[in-house]
Structure formats: C-alpha cells, structure tokens
C-alpha cells in the first residue's frame, strides 16, 4: 500500500486572509511552492508562457463569487420566481408529462457511485453502470416489442431523427416521409439532422401517406401530438414495406403500459421520449431518447450498446460492445457522432419501471386515461366548449374554446392553474392533458374556471 505522510496538526492552520482557499480547489501555498520546485519553474506564470503575453489575464466581466449560503439563497430566489406544477395544477402535456415518481427513485439514482461515475470504458470497475444499462436495454425491448435497444439518446426528438438517418443508411435512399401529426418540435429536429446530410423530408398528411421507392422510411407517432392513438398503424407499416421502406414508430413509453406495442403493427425501429417515465419536467431537460430496432439492423443502430460476457474467471459481466459503430473508432464513417448521452436519466427510467412493474405501469396509464376522459366529459358539457373526440385518444385531447386560448390561460392562472397548449388554427383550440397526478380537486377547479370564462361573456 502507498505510504502517506502524517496529516498536519489542526492547530497549524494558516491565517485566513488574502490567500483564501476555495472549497473546490485544495491547492495551498505550501503545495504550490513544493510543486513548483519539483517542476523547476519559479512561478505558475511560467507554465502559461506559451500563451501570447499580450492576451493573458484578460478581464472577466462576471459577478464575484458567492459563498455557499448566498448561492443557495440566490438559486432559491430564481426558482421561486417560476410558476410551476409544484404550486399550480398543471394541465400541460405536449411532449412532457407529469407522472408519479416513486419515492425510492431519487435516493438510488442520486447515489454518488452512479451520479459521479464516468462512461464505463473500464468494465472491471463499472459493472454497476453497465448492468443497469443492460437492464435498461432489456426493459425498452419489453415495452416496445423490439429485439435490441441502445443505451439511450439525447431525447425523443433526436432519437427519431437518428432513426430516420439510420433508415437512409439501411436502404441507401435519401428521402424520408413523416406524418404531419408528429410533434412539431420533433419534425423540426428531423429536418435539421436531415438537412445536414442533404436528405429530403416529406411531411405528409396523416392517414394519407404516399410512400414511394424513393423513401427510406415512413415515421409516425403514437399517441400523436394531439394525443390520438390510431387503429390503422398496420396499414401504414404495410404501405411502407410495400415500397421497400422501413416503418419507424415513435411511442410514449407510459402509453405502452396499456396499448399494443409497435412490434405488433410492423415497426422496424421504435423510438420514444423516456421523460414520461417519472423524469422531472425540469423545463425541458435532461430527458432521454429511447431507441430500439429489429435484430437485423443492429450494426446500423447508433448510440452505445452493452452486451453480456464473462471475465477471465468465468464470472458473468457486462461490457460496451459493437463499438466499431461509434465515433471514437470509425470517426467520419461513424453511424452517428454521439458520445455522451443521458445515462443517468436512462437509469432513472429503469428504476421507475422496476418500482412500478407491469401492473403499476398499466395502472398509471389506465388512471391517466381515466382522468383525462373524465375531464373531457365534464368540459364537453360546459356550454361553449367542444371536445374533439372523433378518434381514440390516450390522456391528451383538444378542446375548442369560446375565447382565445391565451385569454383563457390568463384567467386560469388566477385560479393557480397552468392551462393547456394553444393549438389554434382558424378556431380557438387548446390541447389539454390530465394524468394520474391531477387530483379531483384540480379537475373541479379547472372545470369551474372554464365555466366562469364562458359565463362571463
């Protein structure tokens, strides 16, 4: 074992003055002197001699350091300035969903051994991370019905974009078809990724898809941006396959506790946003993209993958595998440039699924469905409001409102309610979401407030 010198006596502490120490930087004046002597330079300036002298030590126009208590107070003040689902009833969905986060998730996920560990390139000392990734991959396969899944991507939108690029690599084609009912932000991300590789994007009207031999894939989302779940997905998959294209399905993972998985209706690649699996809303991130596909496409799948193997003593262990797809080996021929992804969030979703199990996940989905349908029924009976109900939907629905949506939302805010998303076209339309987290009292308040708006006209 390495011998260390005895610790200095605690009565030896230096005077606290100009050379005040920072808790993040253990370097003391004594340390500095000893180290400079070993290096053989007079001062630390000598270590920066390669930097052009006239550019060194620039002025940094930043506020001075905050001691920790002041920092915490400042952060609390910033946080308290926000209206959030903590203090207000939240009926917003539109790609980020509030579901119950079991109490055991945070204490486990925030353990320093997970939180502050590195990418598991040294498997002998990273079996914790590696096995949790292997389990996450397995859970995603169980949910989606696919054969293989990766360790996660940045978010659902980028997962969808990468799936479309992968379809282009698999088929050799340079055009993708995507349903106009996919979340508009996701379509924007797909366009961006496609543009970089000069791949054309055809946004096609829902259920009127025209997939040709030029298309690498048809991409759809279930539930779609406005919450609807279709019974026609198999026919879309058939249309794609008839044209030699892949069928890409984006699916909300909580909805998969209830609805038939995309493997049932012909999907080749399944992606999704993992945030709904108990990940905090956190103003949009960090989230995690789910990505799974059929076995035959595994060598084109982007992202990290963990596989099972044995060590020299024959014990089971896990390693990053199929790394030759990735940037650190293939460089410009990599399937993607992804390096760091969202591992801690993937872990969080795995713990969530372990905590809920199949019955719990199904129950969360059922309760969300029920809250939202109950809410819709009650809103539909308020004069002046119409619910768009001609297709099956999960836990989000569109309401046609008697007043502009932003006016209604300002009124709702007075009742400590965060209203739905404005999806107006020529009519005033609001996208409302309810989950198992919206209590009876919250539903009562929302219905009451909406009635007031109509009544005050």
């Amino acid at each position, binding site marked *: 074992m*390495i011998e260390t010198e005895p610790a200095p006596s605690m009565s030896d502490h230096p005077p606290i003055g100009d050379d005040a120490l920072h808790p*993040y*930087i253990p370097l003391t004046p004594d340390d500095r002197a000893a*180290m400079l002597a*070993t290096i053989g330079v007079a001062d630390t300036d000598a270590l*920066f001699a*390669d*930097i052009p002298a006239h*550019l060194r*030590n*620039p002025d*940094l126009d930043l*506020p001075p*350091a905050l001691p920790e208590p002041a920092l915490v107070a400042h952060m*609390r003040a*910033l946080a*308290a300035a*926000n209206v*959030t689902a903590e203090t207000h009833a939240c009926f*917003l969905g539109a790609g980020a969903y*509030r579901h119950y986060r*079991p109490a055991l998730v945070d204490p486990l996920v925030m353990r320093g051994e997970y*939180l502050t*560990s*590195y990418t598991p390139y040294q498997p*002998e*000392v990273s079996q*914790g991370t590696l096995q949790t990734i*292997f*389990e996450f991959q*397995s859970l995603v396969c169980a949910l989606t019905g696919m054969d*293989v899944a990766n360790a*996660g991507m*940045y978010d659902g939108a980028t997962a969808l974009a990468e799936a479309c690029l992968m379809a282009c690599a698999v088929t050799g084609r340079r055009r993708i078809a995507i349903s106009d009912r996919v979340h508009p*932000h*996701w379509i924007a991300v797909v366009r*961006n990724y496609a543009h*970089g590789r000069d791949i054309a994007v055809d946004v096609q009207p829902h259920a009127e898809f025209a997939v040709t031999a030029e298309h690498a894939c048809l991409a759809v989302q279930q539930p779609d941006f406005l919450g609807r779940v279709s019974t026609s997905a198999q026919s879309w998959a058939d249309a794609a396959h008839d044209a030699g294209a892949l069928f890409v399905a984006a699916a909300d993972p909580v909805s998969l506790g209830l609805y038939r998985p995309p493997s*049932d209706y012909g999907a080749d690649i399944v992606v999704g946003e993992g945030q709904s699996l108990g990940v*905090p809303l956190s*103003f*949009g991130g960090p989230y995690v993209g789910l990505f799974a596909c059929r076995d035959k496409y595994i060598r084109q799948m982007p992202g990290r*993958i963990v596989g*099972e193997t044995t060590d020299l*003593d024959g014990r*089971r*262990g896990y390693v990053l*595998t199929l790394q030759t797809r990735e940037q*650190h080996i293939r460089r410009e021929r990599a399937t993607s440039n992804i*390096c760091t992804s*969202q591992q*801690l969030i993937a872990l969080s979703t795995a*713990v969530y699924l372990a*905590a*809920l*199990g*199949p019955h719990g996940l199904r129950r969360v989905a059922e309760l969300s469905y*029920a809250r939202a349908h109950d809410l819709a029924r009650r809103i539909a009976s308020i004069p002046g409001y119409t619910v768009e109900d001609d297709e*099956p939907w*999960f836990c989000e629905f569109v309401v046609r409102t008697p007043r502009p949506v932003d006016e209604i939302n300002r009124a709702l805010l007075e009742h400590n309610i965060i209203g739905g998303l404005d999806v107006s076209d020529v009519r005033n339309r609001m996208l409302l979401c309810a989950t198992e987290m919206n209590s009876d009292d919250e539903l009562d308040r929302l219905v009451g407030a909406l009635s007031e708006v109509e009544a005050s006209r």
Partner: protein
Amino acid sequence: MTDDRRPATAPRLEPTLAELHRPGRIATSLPDAPPADLRPPASLTRTDLPLPELSQLDVVRHYTRLSQLNWSIDTHMYPLGSCTMKLNPKVDDLAASLPGFAEAHPMQPAEQVPGALALMYELQRTLAEISGLDDASLAPLAGAQGELAGVLVIKAYLESIGERRTTIVVPDSAHGTNPATASMAGFDVVAVKPQPDGDMDLEELRKALEEHGPTVAALMITQPSTLGLFDRNILQISEMVHAHGALMYGDGANLNAIAGQVKPGDLGFDVLHINLHKTFSQPHGGGGPGAGPIAVRAFLAPFLPSPHVVLNGDSSGGASAPRDAAEAGSSMLEAGRDTRSSVQHPASTFALIDPPRSIGRLGAHAGNFGVLVRAYAYIRALGPDGVRAMSEAAVLNANYVQARLREAYELPHDRICMHETLFSARRQKARNNIKALDIAKRLIDYGFHPPTMYFPLVVEEALLVEPTESESKETLDAFCDAMLAIAAECDSDPDLVRGAPHGAPLRRLDEATAARKPKLRW
C-alpha cells in the same frame, strides 16, 4: 484483493431484474383501477407486458448493491485526459432539484418562468464572456451536438454569403467526434499532420488550404490540443484560415486549462463549443447527461439554434442587446423577486425566440436545463477569480505529474504541458511487452481509475493524464507513486501487470465474444 472465501460457484456478481422477478410482487402502491366506463377499448390494448415484478426491498437492494460495484469521482481519482473529472459540488445538485426548476414545464409561456429564463440568459452571457465571443446558445444537448450545431452555423453563414464550401480541416490528433460531426453535417474531412513538437505544422496547413482552395469552410481544432499542449502557432493559424475565407472552430473540451487565462475569441476562434460536463462540473452520470453550449461571434449569432433567450424587445438574436437592458435583467437576478405577484416588469423581461436565420432546433425543448442550472451555480460559486484559480491549479497539477513521471515513462513532447500530460508506454512495450492497457489495468489495483488510453491516436501506446484542480497534492503523489511502482513491476513482475486487475470486482472481460455473439438483453 480478491475475496477467496467467495464460493467457486458464484457465477455472477448480482442477479438481473429478470432473475429477481417473482409474479405477484409489487414495489409501489398505487390507487385503485378506474371504473370500466373510463377504460380504452380492448382492441387497442395489449395483453402481455413482460416487465419484472419485484418487492420494494428487492429494488432498493438491487440498485444499491450495483452502485457498490461502481467507481466514481466521489470514491476514486479519475486522471482521464480530456474528460476533466473534477469535483461535482453537491450544492449544484441541490439547485437543480429545487421544485421551482424541477417542476417547470417546457411548454409554459415565457412570462410564467422568468427565473428559468433569467438563469439561461445570464449563463449565455457568462459563457460568451469566458470565451471572448459575443453570444452563446445553450440548446445543444452534449458536446458532440454542440459541435454539430457549430458546424451547421458555419455552414449556414457561408451559404448566406453565397459560398458553398464543403471541406473541413482537422489535425490528425482530433477527437473522433470532430470528423464524425463534420461528416454528419455533410462536409468532407481533410487531416493535417502536426510538427514533432506537437504544434500544428504551418506548412502542412498552408498546403492543405491551397490544395483544397475555396472549398475549405473551417479549421476545427482543440486549444490546448488533444496532446495537452498549447499550440504556439495559434495566431498565425487563425490568420491563415481567415485570410482563406474560412472560419476557426474551437473544440472547447480542454477549456479547463485556459479559462480565465486567455479568451479563445482573442486567439482567433469564431465558434467555440463548451462541454458543461467537463470544465463546468456537471456530473458525468455514467455517460450523461451533459450539455454542449456554443459561443459565437456576433456575425454568426443570427444563425444560432432555436430557441434562444433574449431580453424582450430585442429581435436581433441577442448579440446586440443594449448594456442597460442587460443590467435590468441582471438586477432581476440579484433581487430574485417573487414574480408571481402582478409586478409586470420582471415577468416580461425575457423571451425565447427563434434567431432570425436559425439553423433550427437541436432537441424538442430549450436544452438540458437541469445541467444548465448546475453549470450556472458552479460558475457563481467560483466567480472570475475562482475560474482563474481553477485553470491555474489544473495546469500546475498536470505539470507536477509530468515532472514526477517523466523518468519512468517516455514523454513524446518534452514541453510544459497544459491541464493534461501525455505519456507513451512504448518503452515498456519494447522492453517487457507490456502495453498501455496493461499499465492502466494495474493502476486499478492501486485504487486509481486508468487514464485515457490510446488517444490521441497519433501517439503510440498513449496514456493521457488529466488530474484536474480538484485533486490534492497528496492524491497526486499517491497516483505518481503507483505509476512508478508499476513501472518497476514491468521489469520485476511483468505477468502481474499483464494479468491485472486482480482486486477489482471482476477481472478482464472477454470483449471479443461480446462482439462476436452479442447478447444485448436478458
């Protein structure tokens, strides 16, 4: 050391969730099922959901035990070159988990989340200031995505002035994401060899620029380089590249060395991406989340990704926001007033916009906000003097390690290094047939995570060591003592080194079989 009392038939460290599964067990109690009239039609619903069923104790014990198989910064030193594995202050976690941040929905109107937007605006400004550039985007979700954004911004700008340039030049020593990114953005990649002293070869660069002429869009380099060295030719490089009509892209992975010491913008960079999970201490989480903001010069600001935080009334994309308005915003930050009251001004101070010629969206929302909160808190805790002290200590620590190990390990570039030092295990390979990999694995037995191996590719048997400013002199000495002991073992007991690690939870794993016969799910 290995626990010899472990039964010989212990084939695995920890069962999987599937192996722990027993029908009928639950880990969380939930409300009763809803009434039948509020359930979806059976034709749409699944009958089979093959997820494991566990009790609550099973779940807690499983994940706790697995965590104990993991090393982490909280338990071990990680001298990983180019990763900047520094202290992850717990106060940053506290900040990110405040309900006022954690429960903010990304689709809420801007006037409902002034605290979040104020934080983002200030972080944009802070990163631009440290970079010596004019504006910054917080949208990229990781360093590699920041690179993609930076390259796409360059591409969009050049197209806007009627130039279609299709080549990007990188040094041979570039990190793999650089060429991968260039290719994703539709560029061809040309590599330039360095001089023996590690700096870019100006003659080679000149030849590459001439050979590829007006097709060159940008030079993508890391400064200091991936060799851990400050390229002394940087001002000439910038001048050559700009004279050629191309732009300078900076990979900010090594910003920990120079933050506060010099501004990358002053060195000629037009775009810089910054890894918040490196320099600014976002915990690595076993592989993310991170964030890769990009800082840009004013002429590139209109092309920044969507969305972008600006002060209300500013449609320029942010870069030309008047100083007074910025101060008004800052005063709101300082006061931290509760804006849920009807005070109008602070609530409408900030907005999220699409920059006028934006390259578009990189993700569904505005960025990895929880990561941004941590980075903001980290920089506020340091202040400008702390940032300078951080880079100074990082560079001092690396040079100290270099001084202590240079006799035992070959130093390909005999120069003052920056925040990391690059050795070659060539001597050990030639003498004892011991590779960098073996030395790295033996370090595990001494209680240190291996340094970065085999990167950069231009050095044989590379070992890239980055101690960071977080490690004390005692830890550095213990690390160096271990490296020296291993160097001695290469002569005295090479088999011990080649068979390492011996004291980790597992011994070396069979990666060939894992790749030949992939088993990727239970």
